[in-house]
């Protein structure tokens, strides 16, 4: 067992024994190879279940609203950014949270592995290598190659807010062109982009796993479920699906922390980030705003300036 996880166990045990928190939200080993699963630890005897590694791919900030009372949470960089936004939006109180911060090298995208090996029978993870036995054969992968796309372009691998830190800090990768993926998409012609999104949207089955995996999607009534006015039919076709995905992306403008939980949750492999990353880039370049980086920086949609170059904001 790694030193990091032993320290997390000790800290979680202490918090529960001292009654400082009612529950520790973390990950335990899942039932499928290379898949961790969220868990909720309520007694000091259970803390040994907690794990932390490259298979912990959900954004646990998603659970803090549903659990009342004092809670500790094992949080990687993107999870803490989501927590910051939730605090800014008054969805969770800082004093109810104890953040067990972990630095993150990125998480594994199982779909990338299964595309080559077929369904995974067993896998071993050690020192940046993943040995996989799949239904269609065995293969060894370098972690960097099967890291989720989100993590490849991660700007905040270390927690931005925490009460305790575990493990060494991870250096932020030097990206020559941040948002290179968005730039490549912007350079495509309108027709090419349309064709790309039509193909992607045709895969969507509107199971809403993306929305439900997103810590920021917490509306009591999502616009897609609203029947008066009715924004969408029950139809599942590229146009309707696009309306849903674009609507969701715009609703996340200045709020999306680019954790990629939506993409990893999608059972159909829809490139949801192609939309949300564009909005994230625009927020950064046009408004110099990055969601959830500090508690002090107010949410993008909550601020205005009389110096705004676009006069429509200022009424003379």
């Amino acid at each position, binding site marked *: 067992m790694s030193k990091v996880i032993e320290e997390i166990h000790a800290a979680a045990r202490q918090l529960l024994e001292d009654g400082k928190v009612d529950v520790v939200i973390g990950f335990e080993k899942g039932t499928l190879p290379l898949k961790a*699963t969220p868990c909720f630890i309520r007694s000091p005897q259970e803390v040994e279940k907690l794990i932390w590694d490259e298979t912990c791919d*959900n954004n646990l900030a998603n*659970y803090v609203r549903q659990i009342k009372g004092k809670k500790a949470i094992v949080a990687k960089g993107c999870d803490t950014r989501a927590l910051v936004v939730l605090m800014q939006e008054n969805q969770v109180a800082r004093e109810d949270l104890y953040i067990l911060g972990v630095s993150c090298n990125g998480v594994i995208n199982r779909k990338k592995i299964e*595309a080559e090996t077929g369904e995974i029978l067993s896998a071993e993870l050690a020192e940046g290598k993943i040995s996989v036995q799949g239904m269609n054969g065995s293969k060894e992968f370098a972690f960097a190659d099967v890291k989720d796309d989100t993590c490849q372009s991660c700007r905040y691998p270390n927690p931005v807010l925490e009460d305790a830190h575990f493990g060494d800090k991870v250096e932020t990768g030097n990206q020559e062109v941040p948002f290179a993926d968005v730039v490549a998409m912007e350079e495509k012609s309108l027709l090419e982009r349309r064709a790309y999104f039509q193909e992607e949207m045709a895969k969507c089955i509107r*199971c809403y*796993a993306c929305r439900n995996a997103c810590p920021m999607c917490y509306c009591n009534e999502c616009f897609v479920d609203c029947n008066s006015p009715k924004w969408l039919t029950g139809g599942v076709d590229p146009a309707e699906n696009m309306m849903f995905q674009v609507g969701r992306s715009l609703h996340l403008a200045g709020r999306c922390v680019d954790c990629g939980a939506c993409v990893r*949750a999608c*059972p159909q492999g829809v490139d949801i980030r192609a939309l949300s990353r564009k909005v994230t880039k625009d927020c950064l370049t046009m408004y110099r705003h990055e969601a959830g980086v500090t508690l002090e920086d107010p949410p993008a949609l909550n601020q205005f300036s009389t110096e705004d170059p676009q006069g429509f904001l200022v009424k003379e």
Partner: protein
Amino acid sequence: MKISKDKWGQVFDALASDYQMLAPKEDKGEVNFKRVNCFSEVKQGYLNTKLPAKALFFPQHETLFTYQKEGQGITVKNALKVEKTIAFGVRPCDARAFLLLDKVFNNDQYRDPYYCDRRDTTLVIGLACSQVAPTCFCSQMGLSPVSTAGTDLLFIDLGEAYAVEAVTEKGKEFVAKLQGLEELNAEDQVKLETLKNLQTSSSVDISALTEKLDSMFDHPYWDSLHEKCLGCNACTFSCPTCHCFDITEEFRKTEGNRVRSWDSCMAPLFTKHGSGHNPREDKKARWRQRMMHKFNYFVHNNGDIACVGCGRCLKACPVNMDLRQVIDAVNKAELVVK
């Protein structure tokens, strides 16, 4: 009997001029049932389709009828169009699920014309599994990778040829007309025997499950089970036996459609009343419903467990809610003595 794959390919291509041929086809890395024009388009060596075969008879979204208002009158048009269809390559789990869906859509109280008309005009050619995945648990659900239930005829892949077994009258008629059938040789018999012994090796045990659930409605197990569930519809939409739907109106000015779409017991909106009251108001109640419906209510109402062990739900789940683990936990749950 057997038919060589070459010969079957020719038969398949000839049938395509008279029938709508639906078969597993690969598109952007995913295999799903699609309309195909020739056998070369059919994906070979797939484990199973990503989405269940139920959509062949019960599509995710379908127009039931259209209507148009003219003055004081209304014209209603039935939107159901059925074509003579052959569904090829249905895996035994999905085929078995058809028999369960039949009980819902075609029973002594109700016959759903949309489901039934498609079902009646379709010949189901099953294709036995030659390999099982670690997430498969059909053998534990009372079927097997070579079950014939729900198919009209079953093909078993022998490599260069398919062994052919007629199951229903419809299947027997089809086989009687099938050109190019040969007797199985000794080598084929050995292969067939091996394939027929294939089993999934999961430890799921359903022998006492329904009875156990009879007394578990108020059990504390449900209090924690649902906690990590995101409440999305990935599991129910991936399930070959889940059949809940919603009916809505799509209209503009003087014309409209009445449509039916898949719905899910995992969604809060599924049971929400017009008053705002929701009888299944939390994830706890919804997860209990899903388990009870599959493994208890459906058994009491229709005589069968509504799960075929395809494993799609646990593969689709973003948070690794594993139905096998839930069944195990229910089996092990201590009953509270009142």
